[in-house]
């Protein structure tokens, strides 16, 4: 079973629209995992039924029992994150600031501090309109550990794919180069890099590819809005050649791209011409990965 991850470094390149299109083309052969847990949007195009929901607990959060607290201030002294302010002459843990290191509880002389595992999000397994299954999630606001939630979404999607003998898991990856995208990439067999010919697009592509390289994953690239800037487009192609990244396709700048999304449709359903380009990319990936 293969794992194909779509990433873009930064948002706005059309990553999710393209992933949704691939999900539509692949239909029942694929299990979908939305690992962009911070701003999950796949569900807007996939019409999920939120069939199974599960709370996700991770990390730790401290809580001070005011009856037991003798106001010695030791907890505040050791907290490196300034997460224990004094409010109305009480020591209170600020849940948005607390890193969950547990140091305060270890030094409290009266054991007034307890740690609990906070609910940091929800994880869903849904039937979607492509006839397949999607695992997706919603991270709570200000929550840490999005990397762990990403790992869970992927693990669940893989388990379903194996059980149902699907050919691959298709992952809408997280943005950035930090912890969540590291989780998105680990274990991937192929990475699709979605970029656009802008100086920032190329900049982010280079940066995120450094990470892909660390994992040693084979990569292909889709250039969206390819005709927006020929010069930068050429620079991207030179970069791809240097790094031995397959150029999967070039999608022209087209308002239909956004129109499709506004109508709740994938691009392949909405526009034949754009759809064909994406279908071709999918054929290339299948050939490379032997699907």
């Amino acid at each position: 079973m293969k794992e194909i991850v779509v990433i873009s470094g930064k948002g706005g390149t059309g990553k999710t629209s393209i992933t949704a299109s691939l999900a539509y083309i692949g239909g029942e052969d694929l299990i979908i995992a939305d690992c962009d847990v911070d701003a999950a949007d796949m569900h807007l195009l996939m019409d999920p039924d939120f069939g199974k929901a599960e709370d996700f607990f991770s990390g730790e959060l401290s809580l001070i029992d005011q009856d037991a607290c003798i106001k010695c201030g030791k907890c505040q002294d050791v907290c490196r994150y300034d997460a224990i302010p004094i409010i109305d002459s009480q020591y209170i843990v600020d849940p948005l600031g607390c890193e969950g290191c547990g140091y305060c509880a270890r030094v409290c002389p009266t054991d007034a501090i307890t740690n609990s595992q906070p609910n940091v999000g929800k994880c869903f397994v849904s039937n979607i309109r492509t006839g397949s299954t999607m695992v997706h999630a919603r991270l709570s606001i200000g929550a840490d550990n999005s990397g762990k939630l990403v790992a869970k979404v992927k693990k669940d999607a893989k388990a379903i794919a194996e059980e149902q003998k699907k050919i691959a898991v298709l992952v809408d990856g997280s943005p950035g180069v930090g912890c969540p995208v590291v989780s998105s990439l680990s274990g991937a067999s192929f990475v699709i890099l979605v970029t656009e010919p802008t100086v920032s697009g190329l900049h982010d592509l280079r940066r995120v590819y450094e990470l892909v390289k660390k994992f040693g994953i084979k990569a292909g690239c889709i250039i969206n809005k390819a005709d927006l800037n020929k010069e930068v487009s050429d620079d991207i192609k030179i970069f791809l050649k240097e790094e031995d990244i397959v150029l999967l396709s070039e999608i022209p700048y087209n308002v239909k791209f956004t129109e499709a999304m506004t109508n709740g449709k994938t691009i392949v359903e909405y526009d034949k011409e754009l759809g064909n380009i994406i279908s071709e990319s999918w054929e290339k990936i299948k050939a490379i990965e032997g699907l």
Partner: protein
Amino acid sequence: MKIAIASGKGGTGKTTLSTNLASFIAESRECVLSDLDVEEPNSGLFIKAELIHEEDKFKMIPEWEKSKCELCGNCQAVCNFNAVLKMGKMIMVFPELCHGCYACSELCPTDSLPMKQKKMGELKFYKKGNLNFIESKLIIGEEQAVPLIKQTIDYVDEKFGEDVIKIFDSPPGTSCPVIEATKDADFVILVTEPTPFGLHDLKLAVETVKQMEKPFGVVINRHGIGNDGVEMYCREDNIDIIARIPNDRLIAEIYSRGELLYSTIPSVKEAVKSISNYVDKFNSQKKRETK
């Protein structure tokens, strides 16, 4: 006066707005722009200014000193992030997992784990006339953005007084990094697109700023595409729409070359002007209230 520019998702035009707004304001008075999207800082591509200072940024991690260690295992027991492990007669520290809480170090009975500096990124300070630009970049493979964001804000606070306008280009999303980047702001500008994805992500961003009890307003980018969902949502929830930047292929082309827009595109100039006026009004109102 601190203004954070944020969005539920990347790629909505956050960087475009920050760089154009800061450059516009700097035409008449001193202004600082700080790129806190440390995973993928992009503002620097649009600001052509002179580098006047750079420094490495460090996080503190424990380093094991063998000589006095009694191998009691306390360090492993107190680390909530599994970043210290006792393996046979060795204590191993995993720097990328360490959150720098100091617990293992300060609770070690023999002082065998002194905290040492480890480079996590670089800060650069550029200047051009009234415009000060400060950018930090995380080293690839470094998973935690928050400490670097925090140090960058501290640097800006140290260098510039209260009355200088400070614009923070925040990282995308609703998790820890964006909370860190916006929690000191006096006002938050949320940038969105008038599409279903944009609306969905805007709602998450609104929830986040409301939880932080920050005053905020919305700027709609690529106005004219998509539908009127965002406008209706803002009207119903009494959210100010501060400005609208039209959808225009020419804007996308200029952006793709890494150039600023407001001097060539009148509608963008209008937009940054109204944002600047809005912010001034907000500021003087706030000053009056505190008096």
